[in-house]
């Protein structure tokens, strides 16, 4: 076990997977000579050469589609899309092709590929560079969508994604790259499709994922220490498949739930979670399920506006208090 950053965990896992399997190769814009826009692939070109750490032109539809074809012939491409916003340019290849090829051709061709891409706002990158559109992909059968929140999950889920026989959208978050945490040594693989209870509790469930799952855990710890509120935190880790049972079992225990998500409110991940809870734990609910999500505007550049639009710990604490107060919870 070592304490490393989320960035380092990703880098180390890419490196160990390149060593482990000669069919694994990386491709993306500026991942080689430039070492990646966020330096995840630093040093890998030198170590593995240009065939396995392949710089691509700016052609998202072209190189994402090329990864699909390479995967169909048995390679295991790991594509970096500089940010999730640019994945929109490759939407046809991801949704109409990567997600469909296995089923549409009667199970004859696997598509073992990974698309790594960071989402997230808060960096003053303005409207087109700050989106959280993971739910678009989570809507599509045939894809897997994983959203690691910690360095350990960055390692375990990336290894699992690369070894997976289906196309995986591996969604990172710009604000997580420098966060640190304990990461197990050696070969470490985390099963896709299972949520984690990162803090146990009895009073309220906070359901979250990616960067917001880290925020949720901080808030839960603070509430425990400062107010004696026992919040349970469910980190989804995977949006497709979604581990509904873990969510529902937690709410059956606590009777209250808040979803914290960085994407826009309407039709967002939280809507699916809330629907799951009301169907699976209706009789156990003491209060309506609340969602803390981004304001529904194209994210502005100016810092005061950006801060106002994004969900944060303060908003989460407010909603937790409101939910508890609505049920006359004594705190």
């Amino acid at each position, binding site marked *: 076990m070592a304490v490393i950053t989320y960035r380092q965990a990703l880098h180390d896992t890419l490196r160990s997977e390149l060593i482990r399997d000669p069919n694994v*190769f990386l491709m993306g814009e500026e991942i080689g000579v430039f070492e990646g826009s966020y330096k995840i692939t630093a040093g890998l070109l030198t170590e593995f050469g240009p*065939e396995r750490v392949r710089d*691509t*032109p700016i*052609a998202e*539809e*072209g*190189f*994402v*589609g*090329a*990864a*699909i*074809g*390479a*995967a*169909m*012939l*048995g*390679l295991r*491409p790991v594509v970096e899309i500089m940010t999730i916003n640019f994945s929109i340019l490759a939407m*046809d*290849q991801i949704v*109409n*092709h990567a997600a469909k*090829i*296995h*089923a*549409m*051709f*009667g*199970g*004859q*061709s*696997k*598509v*073992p590929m990974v698309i790594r891409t960071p989402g997230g706002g808060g960096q003053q990158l303005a409207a087109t560079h700050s989106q959280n559109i993971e739910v678009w992909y989570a809507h599509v*059968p*045939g894809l*897997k969508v994983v959203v690691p929140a910690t360095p350990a999950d960055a390692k375990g889920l990336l290894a699992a994604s690369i070894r*997976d*026989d*289906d196309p995986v959208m591996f969604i990172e978050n710009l604000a997580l790259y420098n966060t640190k945490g304990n990461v197990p040594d050696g070969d470490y693989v985390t*099963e*896709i*499709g*299972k949520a984690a209870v990162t803090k146990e509790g009895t009073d309220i469930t906070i359901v979250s994922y990616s960067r917001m799952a880290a925020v949720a855990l901080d808030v839960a710890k603070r509430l425990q220490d400062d107010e004696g509120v026992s919040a349970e935190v469910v980190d989804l880790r*995977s949006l497709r*498949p*979604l*581990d*509904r*049972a873990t969510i*529902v079992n937690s709410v059956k225990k606590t009777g209250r739930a808040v979803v914290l998500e960085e994407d826009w409110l309407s039709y967002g991940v939280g809507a699916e979670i809330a*629907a*799951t809870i009301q*169907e*699976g734990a209706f009789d156990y609910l003491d209060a309506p399920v609340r969602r803390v999500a981004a304001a529904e505007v194209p994210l502005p550049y100016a810092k005061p506006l950006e801060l106002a639009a994004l969900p944060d710990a303060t908003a989460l604490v407010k909603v937790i208090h409101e939910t508890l107060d609505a049920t006359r919870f004594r705190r």
Partner: protein
Amino acid sequence: MPPAQKKSAAPAKKTSAAKASSGFGGESPEQLRAYYREMQLIRRFEERSAEMYQRAKIGGYCHLNLGEEATVVGLMSAMAPRDYLFTTYREHGYAIARGIEPGRVMAELFGRTTGVSKGWGGSMHLFDVEARLLGGYGIVGGQIPPATGAALAIAYRGPGGPDTEVVVCQLGDATTNIGAWHESLNLAAIWKLPIVYVVINNRLGMGTPVEKAAGEPDLYKRGCAYRIPGVRVDGNDPIACRDAMKEALRLAREERQPSILEAVSWRLRGHSVVDPAKYRSKEEVQRLHDLDPLTAYRKRLIDTGAADAAQLAAIDDEVEAQVSAVVEFADNSPHPTPDQLFAHAYATPVANAPRELPGDPLLRA
């Protein structure tokens, strides 16, 4: 029009036929008649497909290769079994010419379990691993980046040479205007990929003429921005298609030089079975009839003595019986059952994969 094509290096095969002619295009009469049989098989298969569509045995969209038989047979005869083909939604003939049992192709059109894609794909999505047909694709241009990536996989595994694999990526004339093609051409050029982009130019998008859709309507020239060479060939001449394809494959295989091969022919029917093609005048329809590649090839066989009328009539009868058997096979094949609905959702089992049918509760007890 097309630059002179390199003649096939293959010597004419010996034949016992007591004909004065030894064939043409460097082929034996026997082989030339085999091409005819293949063209006629595709023709009759497609005519029966139209009929089955009108009888509602076939659903969805149904695009036919009618008028493209010479192109299909010529191109496919040049490919090696180890080569890969990515094609479009107008691909029944390609599947047959790649050697897939026609009954399995018709069964896919019928949506049956015996179909090449087990009833999951239908007319637009034929696929067969054994034949290395890596898909008909329903999204216009969708096949091009994956085909380019398949060529990347071949290049990843080793250098070119006479025994290596090549990817053939077929696309229609209107697809030459799609960005995905241009991104892919660029990738193929900078990475030196073993791929041939075959543009089937039947002169019409759905109803839009090439000249109204393409800034450079000489489609074989459209790789010039990427220094990718192109050749145009008469798509009504199977021998010319075959020879042009052989050279394009050689370039890709041995020199890792991607290229464009444009085959020009005329679609004899509408865009799909349900399109009455009202955008065509009576004169145009008559002209197309006169240009029918099967009629022309048949005449060529007889004129050169490579076949006589009786031989061709016998082939026609044989094909007719075969296609009837094909339809019968499809019609007698089982429909898939709903318990198979999630069979191909993922390639390997995954925790918490959804399996709910409409109306099912979200959480299983």
